[in-house]
């Protein structure tokens, strides 16, 4: 294996954070800005070494605000841009996550979640940011967030995150956690030509921005990337489809909020991925991320004990898989929601399922330590 290969094809035994960095390289990422933070640092550390070798740039910023802002700036000049952090960094980035939403900027944000609130325990994973990434910035908006369950998926879903970000001109989150970020497993990196990545559409030349539609197209407007003479007007203020500021027309204000939301909602079937292994099951264990592995192990144990238990995994947590959860609720008697937190996605799941089946929540015995399968089984037996 060549040290200087762009994509390190083959089988590796490495950390999830390593896989994430290599996924970014495989996706063609060429700009990453970040600030050191446990348990996400290994992603940035690796990219600092790797990016210059693939004609890319790594920037260590003064804080996470600087990181997301410079990544957004780089995206506007045509870079495939990414930032990587953990919960405290996401908290600092929130305002500018909203900027990326409002200006329809392709951006990948890696959140290697950790135990909180506050400084908490940096090295222990917790699915602590599931709601803050979707609802944490001010204003009304939709977001895309993907949840990997293994180092392999930290590679695969990082690539998918870039693909979705570029295709829909949106920020996309990868919701890893300290547990899989620091976990080593086999990681298979396919040949470069087998990695399919969507590219952003670029706006065409015109005399004025008034002759183009650069924003607010629910079918995704081509991006007026800087440096091409397109004279793009990009603003964080409310704007019309040309990007021109408008702080007086209620109809423009309505479209400014609604169309970026519709852009995601209308394409939700392309974005939402779930893994439904509940055929003939009476009980569905619903989960996402690392906990899915506890769920699968518990379902295996339960079936050995003659219980009809299946698993349902959300690879996409946002936009919320409402339709899929409703469908599942109609086919099972009981839904047990498993999360490594005190129930962040649970209210959303319950809202879609409670009309058709019984739904309850089970956190791990000890927060931060994903559920022991036996513990889930004992809960099912008590039911």
């Amino acid at each position, binding site marked *: 294996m060549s040290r*200087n290969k762009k994509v390190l094809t083959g089988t590796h035994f490495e950390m999830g954070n390593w896989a994430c960095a290599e996924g970014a390289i495989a996706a063609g990422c060429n*700009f990453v*800005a970040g600030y050191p933070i446990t348990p996400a640092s290994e992603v940035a550390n690796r990219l600092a070494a790797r990016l*210059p*070798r693939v*004609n*890319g*740039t790594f*920037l260590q*910023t*003064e*804080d996470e*605000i*600087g990181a997301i*802002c*410079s*990544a*957004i*700036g*780089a*995206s*506007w*000049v*045509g*870079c495939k*841009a990414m930032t990587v952090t953990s919960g405290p960094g996401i908290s600092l980035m929130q*305002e*500018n996550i909203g*900027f990326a939403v409002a200006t329809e900027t392709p951006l990948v944000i890696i959140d290697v979640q950790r135990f909180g609130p506050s400084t908490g325990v940096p090295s222990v994973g917790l699915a602590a940011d599931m709601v803050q990434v979707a609802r944490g910035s001010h204003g009304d908006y939709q977001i895309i967030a993907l949840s990997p369950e293994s180092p392999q998926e930290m590679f695969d879903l990082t690539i998918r995150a870039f693909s979705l970000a570029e295709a829909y001109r949106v920020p996309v989150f990868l919701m890893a956690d300290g547990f899989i970020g620091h976990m080593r497993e086999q990681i298979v990196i396919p040949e470069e030509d087998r990695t399919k990545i969507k590219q952003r559409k670029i706006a065409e030349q015109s005399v*004025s*921005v*008034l002759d183009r539609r650069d924003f607010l197209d629910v079918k995704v407007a081509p991006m*007026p990337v*800087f*440096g091409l*003479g*397109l*004279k*793009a*007007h*990009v*603003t*964080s*203020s409310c704007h019309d489809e040309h990007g*021109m*500021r408008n702080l007086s027309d209620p109809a423009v204000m309505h479209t400014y909020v609604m169309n970026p939301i519709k852009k995601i909602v209308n394409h939700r079937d392309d974005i939402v991925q779930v893994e439904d292994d509940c055929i003939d099951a009476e009980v569905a264990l619903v989960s996402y991320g690392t906990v899915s592995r506890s769920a699968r192990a518990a379902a295996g144990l339960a079936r050995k004990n003659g219980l009809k238990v299946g698993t349902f995994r959300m690879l996409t947590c946002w936009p919320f898989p409402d339709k899929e959860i409703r469908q599942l609720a109609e086919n099972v008697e009981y839904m047990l929601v498993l999360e490594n937190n005190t129930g962040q996605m649970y209210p959303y799941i319950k809202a879609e399922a409670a009309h058709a089946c019984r739904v309850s929540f089970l956190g791990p015995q000890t927060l931060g330590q994903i559920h022991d399968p036996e513990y889930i089984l004992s809960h099912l037996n008590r039911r």
Partner: protein
Amino acid sequence: MTVSIHPLKKYTRSHITRTTTCPGCGIGIVSQAILRAIDELEFNMDDFVFVSGIGCSAWIPSPLYNTDTLHTTHGRPIAFATGVKLGLPNKNVMVISGDGDLAAIGGNHLIHAARRNINLTVILLNNGIYGMTGGQTAPTTPRGLTTITSPYGTMEHNFDITPMVVTAGASYAARWTTYHPRQMTRSIKKAIQKKGFALIEAMSQCPVQYGRVSKLGKAVDMLKDFKVNSVKINKARNMEPEALLGKIVIGEFVDIEKAELSEECMNLRRKMMEAM
């Protein structure tokens, strides 16, 4: 009827027919100084990307200037511009914003960009107050001044921005007032051509807010005050600190050559790619 067209009109978006500034605001003088500098250097507007933050002066390039313009969040334009410059090292990237935006909420990005010596031209308009939000005290408000949020007089000391940015590592830094548009234009030209972080601190009058609370009066009175109270840096170096109280030190504070970040990044990429 003869139609006269402003010589700088060619640099603005044709459909933008009015600005958002109050009568007597210093923004017009600074904006013209910027466009004159570009004109005299014979640059095309497409050679530039403008980045601004939040506040009155952030609306200088957005929506007026007819090129790629990025109007960002409060305090962050330098951080955005850093990503723009690293991705487009061959374009001139200019940040235009106010003292509240760049020195208060965005102060950390300002000093770190200067430390990195990234090739940005930063035009910081300093009016000593928060104008857009209604006249609140700023980190640049002189001590003792009564504002809407310092009704008993500010008890805090104010930033001396240009020397701070020099200390942080800028390659070029100059301070002028709106009474000195020619000198300011010359400095902006040098700043654009400087390979490194360049700051122009433009002391600018806000008659509506600052003029009122300082009792300095209208725009013309404020410009007269700039004239009377400005001291050239060469002269100031030989003056006692007490004699400089209430004065505005103007001129070039630093003009040096040193390694610049976007070029260093480019060189690293080239070196690494060649090694492959």
